């Protein structure tokens, strides 16, 4: 037995290198403050420190890292969107995802599986062909496929969906992938922390001070911080922060539920989405089926999960995969989706100088974590919107220039 291992085993303490430093005190000022230590907030902090030399940054989290939607999504990564702005944006995200595990020296369990958006009607196939053409135009690998292809790639599927809604074809997106959701927050967080960013958990923002039309600082549960730049990346809590600065947006909050089965032997390689049946499912590296469905159809600011959700989703799952009848559901949960009318995010500068917004991520935020960090860090550092987010400005609604991505959202609405 190696001597060092023996000595380690016999010693009374077994110190593990911590993932992050714990800071006893909050400093009086920082060059920038990020509200929200989820994937987006921590990714922004990481790129601010790594690419823009801004290390005097604090990330404030009222709960624990990745405890919001970053820890509650169904981990699907794809770029098969409908608009040119969306496709370019999400494609850049997929490219960034692929190198992240190596950049972080942390296993994100990133796994390219292929992604099917099933079409059950001719009208749906029309949308799939539209998406495939826009995707191909920008070099993204997507194609419209027929029912035979679907059956060959997913042999265990009931192609008739219990004769309720027969599958006529699909949009097949080969780069579609899954990853371990909270690992991306840990990876970005550790990377930011190593470069000097301070992460403060259990620290709630209670107010934002302005002076002369500019951000002056942030009131927190642990005292006031002076800062000229604030990035708000709090997903379902966005309206509450925006009230602090008097900004109005279209954002409305609905719960989005999800559930996971017990682990079973690997049988599902690709990721399956059905807009008609309001189902999306993938199988993790541990064999669990991670499943989600539509948004809850009413406003609610509670991440609670219900019996009717599980019943409804299970029924639709059994339409596609009837052999799953005996598989048990282990866990169900919810997150708070910050929805927008065009199913595209709200990113970038705002009318309040020094206040930057990363919100309106609804049901489409997890896949965008890396590109959001990259574009928002550029925006915060330079004070100007990154070119990739020009379709997502806060003022597009007043100009009636929406970026219509509802046709490419996988979540029923």
């Amino acid at each position, binding site marked *: 037995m190696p001597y060092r291992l023996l000595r380690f085993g016999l010693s009374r303490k077994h110190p593990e290198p911590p993932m992050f430093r714990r800071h006893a005190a909050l400093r009086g000022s920082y060059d920038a403050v990020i509200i929200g230590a989820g994937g987006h907030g921590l990714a922004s902090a990481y790129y601010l420190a790594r690419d823009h030399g801004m290390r005097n940054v604090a990330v404030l989290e009222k709960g624990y890292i990745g405890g919001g939607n970053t820890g509650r999504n169904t981990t699907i990564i794809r770029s098969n969107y409908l608009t040119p702005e969306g496709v370019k944006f999400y494609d850049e995200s997929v490219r960034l995802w692929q190198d992240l595990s190596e950049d972080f020296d942390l296993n994100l369990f990133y796994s390219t599986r292929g992604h099917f958006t099933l079409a059950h009607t001719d009208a749906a196939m029309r949308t799939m062909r539209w998406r495939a053409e826009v995707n191909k135009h920008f070099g993204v690998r997507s194609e419209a496929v027929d029912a035979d292809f679907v059956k060959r790639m997913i042999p265990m599927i009931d192609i008739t969906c219990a004769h309720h809604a027969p599958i006529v074809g699909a949009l097949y997106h080969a780069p579609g992938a899954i990853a371990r959701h909270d690992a991306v927050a840990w990876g970005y967080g550790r990377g930011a922390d190593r470069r000097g960013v301070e992460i403060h958990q259990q620290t709630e923002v209670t107010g934002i001070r302005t002076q002369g039309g500019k951000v002056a600082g942030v009131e927190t549960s642990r005292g006031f911080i002076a800062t000229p730049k604030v990035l708000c990346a709090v997903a379902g809590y*966005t*309206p*509450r922060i*925006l*009230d602090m600065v008097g900004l*109005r*947006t*279209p*954002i*409305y*909050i609905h719960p989005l539920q999800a559930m996971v089965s017990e682990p079973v032997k690997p049988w599902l390689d690709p990721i399956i989405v059905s807009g008609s049946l309001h189902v999306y499912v993938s199988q993790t590296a541990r064999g669990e089926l991670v499943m989600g469905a539509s948004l809850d*159809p*009413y*406003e*609610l*600011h*509670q991440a*609670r999960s219900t019996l009717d959700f599980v019943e409804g989703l299970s029924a639709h799952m059994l339409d596609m995969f009837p052999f799953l009848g005996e598989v048990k559901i282990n866990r169900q949960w919810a997150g708070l989706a*910050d929805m927008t*009318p065009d199913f595209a995010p709200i990113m970038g500068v705002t009318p309040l100088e020094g206040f930057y917004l990363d919100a309106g991520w609804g049901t489409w935020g997890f896949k965008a974590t890396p590109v959001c960090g990259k574009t928002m860090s550029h925006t915060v550092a330079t004070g100007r919107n990154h070119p990739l987010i020009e379709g997502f400005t806060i003022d597009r*609604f*007043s*100009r*009636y220039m929406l970026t219509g991505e509802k046709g490419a959202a996988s979540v029923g609405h």
Partner: protein
Amino acid sequence: MSEFAYGGSVRASPDPGSCTDAEWSDYVFNRAGSPGIKREWWCHIASGYWFIVERDTLRDVVLATFPADAARKGFIPPVPAP
């Protein structure tokens, strides 16, 4: 399948003939997104009956209900303090 359908918050429309584009887009798109006690339109699907519900959107508790024409008739009791 649900017995009731949510129809969004009760909101007063500006006069489309005289309001500015900014006021109109604010009415069409912007929302009061924070949690609180809100008045909302709900529909009883089986009977097609629309009515107004006063609901705490943080605790998901229904506090009161009113017939649909309570808004039209101008009878809107003030929202109770939280």
